[in-house]
């Protein structure tokens, strides 16, 4: 596995190669968003469009019984700014 | 002032020996110190990670590991970690 074979020398290359593509973003506070990446900076501030946020709702009563039943809600936003310090992970679409 | 020793010089003397690392959270690591940098990011070998939970202590064995200095609270030179 030669990392240079994938054209990535530094982690931000992965983000640069994902511009105009749909990316999955995992955020602090159990938030997840997916959208088209328009811009980013060194803080990992992001501009996404056509965004779908997935909201995890854990029922505290059920969670107490040790079962992790999580209800999922979704909402859509046309355009979104994500502050970089909340970002945990960004995953670009699969490379082919 | 002749005996003044910098904190990181003490850690430098621990290279090659066991060290016990206590994080800011309920997490601890023991292992052999291979090296560190100015941020006290540390490279450890033959590592055991201890996670203290209300249910008890979980431990995990790890091979060579780079530990982020950001979350470190205390370093205990020469200690193998929690006894028992």
């Amino acid at each position: 596995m030669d990392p240079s074979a994938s054209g990535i020398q530094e982690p931000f290359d992965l983000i640069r190669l994902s511009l105009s593509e749909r990316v999955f973003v995992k955020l602090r506070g159990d938030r997840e968003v997916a959208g088209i990446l328009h811009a980013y900076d060194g803080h990992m501030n992001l501009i996404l469009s056509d965004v779908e946020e997935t909201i995890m709702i854990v029922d505290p009563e059920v969670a107490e019984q040790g079962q992790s039943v999580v209800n999922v809600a979704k909402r859509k936003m046309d355009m979104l700014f994500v502050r970089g310090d909340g970002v945990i992970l960004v995953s670009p679409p699969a490379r082919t | 002032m002749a005996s003044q020793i910098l904190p990181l010089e003490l850690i430098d003397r621990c290279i090659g020996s066991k060290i016990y690392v206590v994080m800011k959270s309920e997490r601890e690591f023991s292992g052999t110190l291979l090296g560190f940098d100015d941020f006290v990011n540390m490279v450890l070998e033959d590592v055991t990670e201890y996670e203290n939970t209300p249910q008890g202590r979980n431990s995990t064995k790890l091979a060579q590991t780079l530990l982020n200095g950001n979350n470190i609270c205390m370093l205990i030179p020469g200690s193998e970690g929690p006894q028992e």
Partner: protein
Amino acid sequence: MSDSTPPPPPAGDAPPAPAPPTHVGSPTDFLKGVVGKRVIVRLTSGVDYRGILSCLDGYMNIAMEQTEEHVGGSVVNRYGDAFIRGNNVLYISAAEAL
């Protein structure tokens, strides 16, 4: 003055050699050895990412390939590529011989 030797240290109080800025086994050396290998990246939240380390930078931002997201011992997600923001990283551990 230029070639005056420092006074000998008092007996029993040998001064330590000043810490060298880098040495074999430093974080940089570790990272050079681990790029391209299978690693376990644990975040401070306790979530693990297992995969091949593509590269990283001085902030410990990480790019990984063939990444599996482990929560509480089971795989909850897979990513072909993943960028992990460095401030979340607790440790990077080698998952194969270096």
